[in-house]
């Protein structure tokens, strides 16, 4: 089974600054998708950004971008110009494109605190 590791249980960033959340994964597959999900307190988990393993270009969604290093099996999330609304639990997730199960494999999450 694929494992996803988020080594930072908690991170803190000041408003308007940039923060990077780490994620590594372990897989022997060549085709897969990687996701970052965000769960604000008492709110539903929403998709922030996704990356297909076959695409070399790093995905970007407004202030959110990823650094995808396939050989190193690393998938970090960079949040630029951090805002108070970015405070949330962030989950990195892996999903096989080959296995018919298609279950998401999550990391333990990183709690992001944004300070004024």
């Amino acid at each position, binding site marked *: 089974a694929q494992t*996803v590791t988020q080594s930072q249980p908690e991170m803190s960033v000041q408003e308007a600054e940039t923060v990077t959340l780490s994620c590594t994964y372990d897989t022997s597959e060549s085709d*897969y*998708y990687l996701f970052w*999900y965000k769960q604000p307190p*008492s*709110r*539903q*988990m*929403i*998709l922030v950004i*996704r990356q*297909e393993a076959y695409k070399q270009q790093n995905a970007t969604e407004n202030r959110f971008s990823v650094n995808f290093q396939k050989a190193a099996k690393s998938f970090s999330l960079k949040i630029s110009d951090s805002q108070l609304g970015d405070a949330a639990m962030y*989950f990195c997730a892996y*999903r*096989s*494109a080959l296995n*018919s*199960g*298609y*279950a*998401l*494999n*999550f*990391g*333990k*999450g990183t709690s992001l605190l944004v300070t004024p």
Partner: protein
Amino acid sequence: EAGVTQFPSHSVIEKGQTVTLRCDPISGHDNLYWYRRVMGKEIKFLLHFVKESKQDESGMPNNRFLAERTGGTYSTLKVQPAELEDSGVYFCASSHDRHPGNTIYFGEGSWLTVV
């Protein structure tokens, strides 16, 4: 458009009792998933429905857990009898199709505490 809704949001039950969690997926989404997060651990996949059929139930921990999706609309997850280790957050999610790159939409979760 309504998102994935789950009920109850919080539940506290005694060991040995039964709890039933309900999930209403986004209208038109044939794929429905259940996940669980035990405190301090990863969110783990439980099972996947396509319409009313169980596509993958490899993550169900044991036979005390029963999931149903009669008619292919809402789903229930019953835990009977509940044990202390069943405490956690149960997430329901849905998607329009099974393409692995597509967005899976999550509910807010049902918090279960077994005492």
